[in-house]
């Protein structure tokens, strides 16, 4: 087993640069022990993808990422036959094929002879493995990140079920491919739509919320060693106040870190209304949000 206990999980994640709450550590520990996928929900920028990165780092596994989007299909996610290569090979070995069928006395016989060679064209050589197939057929165990599963079509979700419960995929021409090693699977969702019950049933569920201030302060300190304690606390305080405003997109932990970075690079050690206004585009991703924050700047900073 990868992790010995929940505490061990937490320590290893922290060594990989991810500060996990007790709940996160527990779920990760269970998932690693039970070989179950984790379905991670939470607001954008709360560290869902980061969790997968940290896991691959601390488990010392390769990370394979599949970004979901509308219209994603099996050919992009699982495997594809490399038609171009197949056609090219057909051209190159045309002579050989001619030899093969030259002795045939009827067309039916010729077809029969070619059919016998069919396997040559539908073999691993011409199979283009996409992320899902890569993940289960890798020589070493991997971490498979299926990012923003809620953006994919419901059909795709249905097709994932076989992979997630049996860790196998069926390729009509080659048969069923079982996983050599069971990958650690992380699915992330922004709650754009609800997942189907069947998918939820196969996963452990984890919700990552906005971190509470102490945790966020620890994360900032970890990501930006040497940041002034006073400044770090002020940053967290301001961000928390901004979160309470009515915004299109509330800043999350990744925005906090970006902002702290920006302040460090600009060598700003005191957050004044001007400083906030200058660096606001790091925190707010919409023009109207930035305006809302500017209007409330006095309230936020005091």
């Amino acid at each position, binding site marked *: 087993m990868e992790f010995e206990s929940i505490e061990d999980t937490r320590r290893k994640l922290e060594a990989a640069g991810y500060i996990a709450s007790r709940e996160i550590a527990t779920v990760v*520990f269970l998932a690693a022990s039970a070989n179950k996928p984790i379905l991670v929900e939470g607001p954008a920028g709360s560290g869902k993808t980061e969790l997968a990165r940290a896991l691959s780092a601390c488990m010392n596994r390769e990370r394979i990422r599949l970004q979901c989007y509308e*219209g994603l299909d099996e050919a992009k996610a699982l495997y594809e036959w490399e038609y171009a290569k197949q056609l090219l090979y057909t051209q190159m070995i045309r002579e050989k094929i001619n030899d093969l069928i030259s002795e045939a006395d009827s067309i039916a016989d010729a077809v029969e002879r070619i059919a016998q060679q069919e396997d040559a064209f539908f073999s691993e050589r011409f199979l283009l493995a996409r992320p899902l197939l890569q993940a289960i057929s890798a020589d070493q165990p991997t971490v498979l990140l299926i990012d923003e599963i809620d953006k994919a079509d419901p059909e795709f979700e249905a097709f994932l079920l076989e992979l997630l419960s049996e860790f196998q995929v069926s390729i009509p021409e080659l048969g069923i491919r079982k996983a050599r090693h069971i990958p650690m699977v992380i699915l992330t969702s922004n709650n754009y739509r609800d997942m189907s019950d069947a998918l939820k049933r196969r996963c452990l569920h*984890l919700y990552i919320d906005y971190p509470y201030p102490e945790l966020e302060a620890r994360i900032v300190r970890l990501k930006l060693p040497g940041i002034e304690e006073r400044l770090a606390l002020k940053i967290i305080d301001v961000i928390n106040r901004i979160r309470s405003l*009515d915004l299109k997109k509330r800043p999350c932990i990744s925005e906090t870190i970006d902002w702290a970075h920006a302040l460090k690079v600009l060598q700003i050690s005191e957050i004044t209304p001007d400083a906030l206004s200058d660096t606001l585009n790091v925190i707010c991703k919409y023009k109207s949000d930035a305006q809302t924050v500017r209007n409330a700047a006095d309230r936020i900073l005091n």
Partner: protein
Amino acid sequence: MHDNERMTEHDNQAGGRLTRTILKFAAVCRAGGLRVSTAEVIDCTRQLGWIDLAEEPEFRAVLRTNFAKSRRDQGRFDRLYRLFFREPGGAQHANGDTAAPETLNEAAAETLIERALQAVDSDDPLNQSLIDFLRGAPESFLTALRRLESREERAASGMKSNLGQLSGRLEILLAINRLDAAIGGAAGGGIGAGSGDQTGNQAGGPNRGVQPHPDQTRTRQDERISGAAARTLANRLDTARRMLSEDTRPDNEALKRVNTHEARYGDIGEKPLSGLTPDELIRMQAIIDRLVRKLRDRAGRRFSAASRGPLDVRKTLRHANRFQGIPVMLQYRRRPPKKAKIVALCDVSGSVWSTARFMLHILHSLQACFSAVTSFAFIRETTDITEIFEKHDAGAAVERVLASGSIGFGTPTDYGEVFHQFRRDHLHLLDRRTTLIIVGDGRSNYHHPREEALAAIREKCRRIIWLNPEPEAFWHTGDSEMYTYRAYCHETRVCRNLNQLVDFVEELVV
């Protein structure tokens, strides 16, 4: 993986008890409205073997990750968990060790319950479920509460209100109070004529130091236990009372609330839609038309970039003829565009009369923008107006809808009825690709909101977006059921001027 051989007989017994507790908790979760499958119970029980059960947060995390599989369910799970493991009534402690005095207490409580049963009608299912609740099996009580939520009005027409729900609550509350009184009486009467106070006997109370008669000690002891048991039961009933008044709506934190927008069209953009002059209406129509054209182009461009399909062998071979049969140019199949479907429900009643016209304009432009839009107008009943919109251009179509007799102008809006009807008659229109847009103020004239119908609709579609022409400060004032319905929407937006509308339509396409 785990060393089973080390499991002793004792461990086995403890494991059995743990399994029973988990099974019971799963039953409570199901009664409380969570969908927990057997597979999940099995997983959970297995996983509990790997953690330190003395660590309560971890124990809880294991249960939660298995039983509540979406953010919406977590609030409900937390309530049930508190009830089952934390409340004095639930008394199912994670480590499972029950101290001896507590057992004694349980026995005394049981006697009290038996006595109280004689005072109340024990055949009444409501009383029965409360008794079960006191005995630590809250399933039937939870089911009763849930039935209350989804209670349907008996009268299918005529005057309706949500009084049925309220009176249902009152009925349960009265039953709780009766039982409370019965238990109080049982505890007081059973001890004997001498002691008037049932609860004032604290351990070691006023007669410390006095050496009582052994017989008397015994009575005192009984009294104390009985009093403690009565207190425990009273606490449990308090819990039941609290659960009755608790808001059990799912925690809808993923709800997108949009109240901000970009100020684009200076003069006309910020004017409330209800106050537009005919002249401005025409200008606005032009802006919307332009927007629709722009969006259509954008959707088209995106399609051409993303629509490369698998290889089209036939086409490739045909092209290969030009190069002596060598397939130099590969041809790909184009996929027909997958179109997002939209079903729109638009309130055209008197309370939104000033904006109804405009809302219909919105619907009309939506229909122009997306290929598969089905539009309904409603007041008390839904009317399909898709065809009218298809045949006529904006202005004429809106006039036609407002003039058509089938909508039933003059009757009060009843959102509950509309959702109920929609679920009954039009649910087949929804699938996982469909976005349902509801346009209205959510003012239901104090009719029963029937939120469970909306919850069922949510299960079937991809997104529910609610556009409300009222500013957010007015939501949930008076007869507005906006906060009730909000728990089931994916997104709520204030939409009272052109800028907000343009923002919405753009985001819908993106």
